């Protein structure tokens, strides 16, 4: 069977690429190994008859970044809407109240109004007002979409601007854990993308969680006439005379001159015999553990009204694999009930993300694995207790997923969430016709990976075929 283009993976980037191609009558098929779409931001359910039956969970979703108000223009989210011809109202966005970066003895709040963070910095780091303004200006004027810019250390850039190390650590904390494949640092272009998405624009959550986004994308794909196959693992990428010509999917050969792969750069190289001789892109080390707690009631807003807390219990922020299975010195704690007009059920939910260590988790046998998860649970519950000491809700349900879970359901090597540390910023590989989209093109998170899928589909699937 022949296509104009084949997309590997039905995560956010793959779905978006498929939609763009199908919209303009390209014959396209999306091949997904799993039985459902979504990839790193998919969904699942858990059964528990003692406590209210079946519950639906999102894999990732803490926050949809890049919040805009209806009608705002020229922003990443407005580009996404236009390119996929989706309407703002379809997303039913519920904005955050505010979030905070919490370090020993110091707290910085930010919200969907950049003024809040600005005032917080002015008030709490009065000697850094000029340097913070200089950073903001630098971020504003930086063209993060220029794909020809090479790696530049954000820490170095910050060091040249900001003297108070605590401010640097605090600003970096959310940006690193929400989007850095690199340990302790990140590419400055990535820093700028994240700074804009989190601090300038902010957070919201679609009513209904990630399912709302996925069903919008699936519906669009269907309406545009795009084909999608589940339980369709791509085993290898076929080439002739060094050029991509198709894929082997579950033993069947499909042909296309353009292949867009969202499974990761090292993962793509692994299934491309023609790339055997290149030095393989390195697998990133950053992976996480996520604990989801459901309580019999909501946390009263008098006890906590923030949406996300970036917690760190040292003056330095150590963003690297945990030395001992998981790192309880720092965490992201998400209170999804504190998105405006959100949860109407009586229950309360809290999500706690810890940095983890893949190789240690991999070594555990079944009972060791379960025991470790119990330790994670106790530790994360302890942190919730610390943040909301007066809360007396009864724990109804717990679900914890580990780097092994991420690897098992998304096939990302070592359970990495932010992919390889060797990005291919323009998506190209050494095989003409084969392109990397999503995380390893350097655009991640839900909004980033969707935009990556859109722009590479435009470039290699729509514009290239003009000639």
């Amino acid at each position: 069977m022949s296509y104009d283009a084949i997309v590997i993976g039905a995560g956010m980037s793959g779905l978006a690429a498929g939609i763009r191609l199908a919209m303009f009558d390209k014959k396209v098929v999306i091949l997904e190994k799993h039985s459902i779409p979504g990839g790193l931001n998919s969904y699942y359910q858990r059964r528990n008859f003692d406590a209210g039956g079946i519950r639906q969970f999102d894999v990732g979703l803490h926050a949809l970044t890049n919040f805009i108000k209806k009608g705002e223009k020229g922003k990443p989210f407005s580009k996404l809407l236009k390119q996929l011809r989706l309407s703002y109202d379809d997303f039913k966005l519920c904005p955050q109240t505010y979030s905070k970066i919490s370090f020993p003895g110091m707290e910085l709040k930010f919200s969907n109004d950049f003024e809040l963070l600005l005032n917080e910095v002015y008030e709490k780091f009065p000697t850094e007002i000029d340097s913070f303004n200089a950073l903001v200006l630098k971020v504003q004027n930086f063209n993060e979409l220029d794909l020809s810019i090479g790696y530049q250390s954000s820490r170095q850039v910050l060091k040249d601007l900001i003297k108070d190390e605590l401010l640097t650590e605090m600003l970096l904390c959310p940006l690193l854990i929400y989007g850095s494949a690199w340990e302790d640092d990140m590419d400055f272009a990535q820093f700028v993308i994240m700074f804009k998405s989190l601090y300038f624009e902010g957070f919201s959550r679609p009513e209904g969680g990630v399912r709302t986004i996925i069903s919008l994308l699936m519906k669009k794909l269907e309406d545009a006439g795009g084909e999608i196959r589940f339980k369709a693992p791509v085993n290898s990428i076929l080439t002739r005379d060094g050029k991509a010509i198709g894929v082997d999917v579950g033993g069947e050969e499909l042909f296309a001159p353009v292949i867009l792969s969202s499974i990761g750069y090292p993962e793509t190289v692994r299934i491309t015999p023609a790339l055997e001789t290149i030095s393989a892109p390195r697998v990133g080390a950053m992976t996480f553990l996520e604990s989801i707690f459901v309580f019999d009631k909501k946390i009263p807003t008098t006890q906590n009204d923030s949406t996300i807390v970036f917690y760190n219990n040292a003056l330095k922020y150590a963003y690297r694999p945990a030395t001992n299975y998981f790192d309880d010195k720092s965490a992201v704690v998400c209170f999804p009930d504190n998105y405006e007009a959100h949860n109407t059920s009586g229950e309360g939910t809290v999500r706690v993300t810890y940095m983890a260590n893949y190789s240690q988790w991999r070594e555990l046998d079944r009972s060791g694995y379960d025991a470790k998860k119990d330790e994670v649970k106790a530790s994360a519950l302890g942190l919730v207790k610390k943040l909301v000491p007066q809360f007396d809700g009864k724990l109804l349900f717990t679900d914890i997923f580990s780097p092994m879970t991420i690897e098992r359901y998304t096939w990302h090597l070592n359970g990495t969430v932010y992919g390889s540390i060797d990005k291919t910023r323009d998506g190209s590989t050494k095989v003409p016709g084969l392109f990397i989209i999503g995380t390893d093109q350097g655009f991640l998170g839900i909004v980033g990976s969707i935009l990556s899928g859109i722009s590479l589909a435009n470039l290699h699937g729509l514009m290239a075929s003009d000639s």
Partner: protein
Amino acid sequence: MTANNVRQIVLDIIADIAPDEDVTSIDDSKSLREQLDLDSMDFLDIVMELRKRHKVEVPQEDYPKLATLESCVSYLSPKFA
């Protein structure tokens, strides 16, 4: 097809691509980009829609000819003839 028809075809496409834009007050001689929130991705969509709806091809090197409504009309009219 008259120049006015071609103008309307382009306007209809823009209205679909950028539903939030007011296309009634466009100055034909001024850059579309400056008047509306259109970026290079949107210009690609104009080209793709011309092909999809009207089988009119605009090669990549000619994209600059779509800069204003006026230049759109003079460039596209022969293609609709």
